[in-house]
């Protein structure tokens, strides 16, 4: 393997600590990744040398801050291959970005229209659409999985002439499966629907090209791709962003205000009310630079090899239900019959291993898989094969300890 995660470890000093006298093994990367030094340095540099509000003052610091802030927009636009930087809207994160679209498109929906999502959605890409359907009388429809977790072979009939919005995740946060996006987006476009892709779980791993995906909206969070929390991105095609009614109004998003009326600003500012999360934007651009400096495909291959290693070992050990695909995923989601995932999680934690146990904000998917929740080990570029093995060893110990006589 060409890629060596140990070369990246020094950039993540947080990982060098012990947890309860064991080496900290961080395998909860799908929840949030750790932040490399260049991201932390960029945030510190912002406060040390160019902190000022953006787009407002006309002074030395505000010019520097505004320049760096808009450079960051350009960096992020290039990172996802957006054609124009004005197509990149800053949000708090994926959840807010989806809400901006769900509220923004409310005016185009009529009773009986259909909003289509998939079985793999995180609550963030489900609840805003469900609530939008409640408000408008539209119908929320779901492209389902079969009982063994595969896509129904024939799902095209879910895309109808009433489908106005199609929203789907690129990669499932709960089980790591990918969505056949190209096919689905194509079907949605044939019906003239708006398309939104939830890239929260994809951006840290897969090089993203929004033009190749050809979706109307692409959304993601900074903190799951080595960037800071509280910053996310709504990318949209020009006509798609233009049709959105602003979800929030106030300062910054206006051009002229009188007591009688307000003229809204142009994109991207029209959808960015209030002082933005400037340090988050600066940190996110640094995270893009960090990823751009890596061989992305080598990183992806490494992360997938770790997940596949765990999958193979646990399958061999037996007695473990695995819900993730064998290949092409960067996480392993599992449960053990008759042992509670929180008990497994507690033992792993006692050994310094951080994973996630729960429903992963995907109650309907869990119900469909017939489990209350799963234990998820999710990998990032800094994880080592030793860590993957340690997870397997300790998990198998936990199963021994917790198995009843």
């Amino acid at each position, binding site marked *: 393997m060409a890629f060596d995660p140990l070369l990246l470890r020094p950039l993540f000093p947080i990982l060098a600590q012990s947890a*309860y006298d064991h080496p900290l093994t961080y395998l909860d990367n799908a929840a949030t990744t750790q932040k490399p030094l260049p991201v932390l340095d960029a945030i510190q540099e912002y406060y040390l040398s160019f902190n000022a509000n953006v787009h407002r003052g006309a002074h030395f610091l505000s010019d520097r801050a505004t320049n760096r802030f808009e450079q960051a927009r350009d960096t992020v636009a290039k990172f996802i291959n957006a054609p124009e930087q004005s197509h990149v809207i800053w949000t708090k994160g994926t959840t807010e970005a989806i809400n901006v679209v769900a509220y923004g498109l409310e005016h185009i929906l009529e009773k009986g229209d259909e909003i289509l999502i998939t079985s793999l959605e995180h609550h963030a890409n489900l609840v805003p659409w469900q609530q939008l359907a409640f408000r408008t009388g539209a119908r929320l429809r779901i492209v389902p999985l079969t009982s063994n977790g595969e896509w129904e072979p024939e799902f095209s009939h879910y895309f109808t002439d009433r489908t106005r919005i199609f929203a789907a995740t690129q990669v499932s946060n709960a089980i790591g499966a990918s969505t056949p996006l190209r096919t689905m987006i194509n079907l949605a476009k044939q019906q003239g629907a708006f398309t939104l892709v939830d890239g929260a779980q994809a951006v840290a791993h897969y090089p993203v090209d929004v033009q190749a995906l050809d979706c109307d909206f692409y959304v993601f969070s900074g903190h799951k791709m080595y960037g800071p929390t509280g910053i996310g991105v709504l990318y949209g095609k020009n006509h798609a962003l233009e049709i959105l009614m602003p979800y929030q109004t106030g300062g910054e998003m206006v051009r002229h205000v009188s007591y009688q009326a307000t003229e809204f600003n142009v994109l991207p500012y029209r959808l960015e009310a209030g002082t933005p999360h400037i340090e988050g934007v600066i940190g996110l651009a640094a995270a893009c630079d960090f990823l751009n400096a890596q061989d992305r495909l080598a990183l992806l291959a490494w992360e997938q090899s770790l997940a596949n290693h765990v999958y193979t070992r646990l399958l061999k050990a037996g007695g473990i239900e695995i819900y993730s695909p064998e290949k092409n995923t960067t996480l392993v989601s599992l449960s053990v019959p008759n042992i*509670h995932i929180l*008990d497994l999680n507690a*033992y792993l934690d006692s050994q310094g291993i951080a994973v996630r146990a*729960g429903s992963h904000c995907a109650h309907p998917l869990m119900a469909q898989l017939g489990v209350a929740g799963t234990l998820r080990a999710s990998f990032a570029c800094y994880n080592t094969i030793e860590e993957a093995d340690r997870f397997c060893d300790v998990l198998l110990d936990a199963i021994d300890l917790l198995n009843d006589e």
Partner: protein
Amino acid sequence: MTDSLGQQKPVNIKAQLQACRSKEETFKTLVTLSKTLPRLSTEEKTEQNKIKGCESAVWLIMEENDGRRHFKADSDAKLMRGVLVAILSLVEGKTQTDIQQMDLKAELAELNLSSYLTSSRTNGVLAILDKIKSGSEHRDNQHSPKQ
């Protein structure tokens, strides 16, 4: 009189937990303690007895007898059953007035169980303590609109 904790004496439980020197030892002790908790019957595991706010399912039944409180509890997670043994050892057989005067959080912290007291959603120990403290059979009423 036998209490709901079978042969386990409260003082013994306290000593066992206090002797734990690591998170792993506490884990193993809780697993051992969990085995002493009599399981509830399916009929007893009602929605009404279920504690909301726990990711693992937890049921708690409180009864009063001669002015003293008696408890039965169960969970689908083993570690939580161990924690329940520890919690019930603190309050079993006490009067509601006594229970209300206890600082249950502090007492659990003394048993090396503070990491179970965070308000994280994976863990409903605080909700259990709330219900024990309130002494009410219908905790849900607390959330209903004021008359």
